[in-house]
């Protein structure tokens, strides 16, 4: 043994319920599934060998017969573990190659396949068909313009994401040549952990009534992105203040009316409303003066 291996220090169980393993959102979902709380879970076993009835939104400004939006019906053979994305892919590959939607990773990582499924924003690849009532109604995300079929224009969403300067800013970053690490404390890492999980799917923004009525509202995802950096101890106080100044503008955190719709739809279980509320309090604290 040439290298000295240090015994790892014993660790306290972290506060975060997800780390403690008391009940993570995933466990909650599993529990709900087992106890039959999810929509129509009884039919789970009965779908074997049957077909799934999809109603898919269709629209294409460039095709004569599709300029009027309509719903098309597809009957797709069910397979164990089939997701909504699997189902629409089958429909596209076998029935209608013009059926258009975005997808890439198929494992809830790339964020390209958020749809409006049975009245709720969900990731196609993360939504099991057995959990849904039939017919499964699949629409493009509401509150975004439809380009074609299930494809919506995401430009505005991306603009809002970029508006909060979503990159690390610190003058004290060591020069790359020094090969120094810029360490973050484990506690601070835990603090921003959930906020760092965003996959830019846009489900939250689409679910938000306020964002629907106020096009300039930054929206939950962008505010959450700002939270990730504002709460990072390694950035200086001055930069945190700069970030709060962006967030407390007219169309920033104060537009949030705590409807929790974003938190409910986020496929990565980010506590968006909680983060927005915390930033509201930070913004107030910064402006409070007792003199």
């Amino acid at each position, binding site marked *: 043994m040439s290298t000295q291996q240090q015994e790892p220090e014993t660790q306290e169980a972290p506060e975060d319920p997800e780390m403690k393993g008391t009940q993570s959102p995933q466990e909650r979902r599993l529990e709900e599934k087992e106890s039959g709380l999810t929509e129509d879970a009884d039919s789970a076993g009965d779908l074997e060998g049957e077909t799934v009835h999809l109603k898919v939104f269709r*629209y294409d*400004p*460039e095709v004569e017969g599709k300029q009027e*939006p309509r719903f098309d019906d597809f009957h797709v053979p069910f397979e164990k573990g089939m997701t909504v994305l699997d189902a629409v892919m089958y429909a596209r590959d076998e029935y209608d190659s013009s059926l258009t939607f975005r997808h890439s990773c198929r494992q809830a990582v790339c964020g390209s396949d958020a749809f409006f499924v049975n*009245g*709720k924003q969900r990731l196609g690849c993360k939504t099991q068909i057995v959990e849904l009532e039939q017919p499964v109604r699949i629409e493009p995300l*509401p*509150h975004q*313009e*439809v*380009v074609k079929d299930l494809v919506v*224009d995401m430009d505005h969403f991306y603009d809002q994401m970029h508006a909060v300067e979503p990159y690390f800013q610190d003058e004290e970053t060591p020069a790359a040549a020094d090969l120094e690490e810029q360490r973050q404390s484990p506690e601070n890492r835990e603090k921003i952990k959930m906020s760092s999980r965003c996959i830019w799917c846009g489900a939250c923004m689409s679910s938000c*009534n306020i964002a*629907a009525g106020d096009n300039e509202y930054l929206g939950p995802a962008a505010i959450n992105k700002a939270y990730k950096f504002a709460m990072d101890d390694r950035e200086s106080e001055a930069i945190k203040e700069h970030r709060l100044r962006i967030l407390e503008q007219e169309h920033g955190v104060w537009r949030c*009316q*705590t*409807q*929790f*719709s974003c938190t*409910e739809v986020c496929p990565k279980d980010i*506590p968006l*409303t*909680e983060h927005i*509320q*915390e930033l*509201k*309090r930070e913004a107030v604290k910064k402006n409070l003066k007792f003199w």
Partner: protein
Amino acid sequence: MSQSYNRGLIEDFGRWKEFSAGMWAWIFHKFTGWMLIGYLFTHIAVLSTAIGAAQGETMMLASEQVDVYTGTIQGLESLFIIRVLEVGLLAVAVFHILNGLRLLMVDLGIGLTAQDKSFYASLILTGVITVASVPTFLTGVGL
């Protein structure tokens, strides 16, 4: 991209069946808040008849000469519709207060994971209090 399809506002409101607890809480809170403001004005209008009464103004109520303040209030309270509206006002105020406390907790970041349950609790409590108030509000009114 040559064209895109905007589904517009009508479809937004058409989605009300898909609203979640927090969205309903927000709508009800707005509605009840503005109802209370509306009541405030009628309240001031009725109470301000006391100014007239202090100056000796009178009116006829059930062929009796009474001062204008007493007359206005007794006249209104004898109407069944006013009693029903009072029950409604209580319901609106109770919901606004309970959900207002819920919103204060939400603003303080307390119990955020139970926000839907606290909304349902506000609704149920409002219902119970409203029903319990009916006998009090409807005593001695001729139909």
